[in-house]
């Protein structure tokens, strides 16, 4: 159900922007959804199909870019990809980390005709 509300918001944002541009049809929606955002693409596509029916976004191609999780050590500033059960810095072993990528959930652009 998480994806349902995400898809609803995403569609209404796309329709609003396409409306402002007086577009006749939305052909593609480019989304950036990080690994940590917990969003399942297939589920978004599923909801999109029926939510977009009878709108100018019907049939649009959904393109997902999924940035991987990246962490930065607060002590030595090393940037790294965490292991499954180990978020400590691989260089200085500090547990102090900051999530710098992976939580993205935004619309980069739409393509319209």
């Amino acid at each position, binding site marked *: *159900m998480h994806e349902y509300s995400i898809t609803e918001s995403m569609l209404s*944002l796309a329709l609003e922007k396409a409306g402002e541009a007086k577009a006749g049809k939305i052909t593609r929606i480019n989304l950036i959804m990080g690994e940590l*955002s917990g969003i399942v693409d297939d589920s978004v596509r599923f909801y999109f199909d029926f939510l977009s029916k009878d709108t100018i976004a019907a049939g649009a191609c959904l393109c997902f870019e999924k940035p991987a999780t990246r962490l930065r050590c607060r002590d030595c500033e090393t940037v790294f990809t965490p292991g499954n059960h180990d978020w400590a810095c691989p260089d200085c072993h500090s*547990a102090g980390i900051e999530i710098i990528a992976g939580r993205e*959930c*935004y*619309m*980069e652009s739409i*393509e*319209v005709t």
Partner: protein
Amino acid sequence: MAVKVITIGEDILGANEQKARGNQKRLDQNGILAVNIMSSPGAGKTSLLLRTIDRLKPEVRIAVIEGDVASSIDAERINEAGVAVVQINTAGGCHLDANMIGNALNNLPLENTDLLFIENVGNLICPVEFALGEHRRVLISSLPEGDDKPYKYPAMFADADVVLLNKIDLKSYLNFNIDAFQKTVNGMNPDVKIFPVSCQTGEGLESWFSWLESTLKDKKKTTK
């Protein structure tokens, strides 16, 4: 026909965030501190609220918004404790959103409230992405869930102002490394306050009550 690219670069949940800011403004106008309580199902959200109401109620005017997928069991328990409560049933939805909170605020005595608890739907994934207009986020994690939860749900732990580690009365039965848990959570979120507690025995709850009381005091200062 020529394809035109429109650059957007906007958060997909921007509309929710805008509504959340509206809710917060309304809460601020009434001098209310709003606390969003999140956890997995069964970690102890309602038990914590009942303990907290019992302790603070004479001095602090409390209201509660209860979010559940279905049923009003929790709202009934809160209602018996004698505070204003609104139940939101999300009908399958796994989180509360700002719009639901806006509607619930219409049914609460805002002018007679100091502290609003919003008990979110039990879930460690999406509630963190939906701002409600709250001033503080409290996450309850409990010993039976295991000490690896911060790695599995990092966003939840990274955004919390307070983490209550509940059910510490079960410590001797479970293989939960409290020190390692605290170190991991502090690593992800250096400003977080972690309180090990038991809503069953009451152990550790004094620190939580003190935190709430001082946060309420700070809120009153900024309202005046």
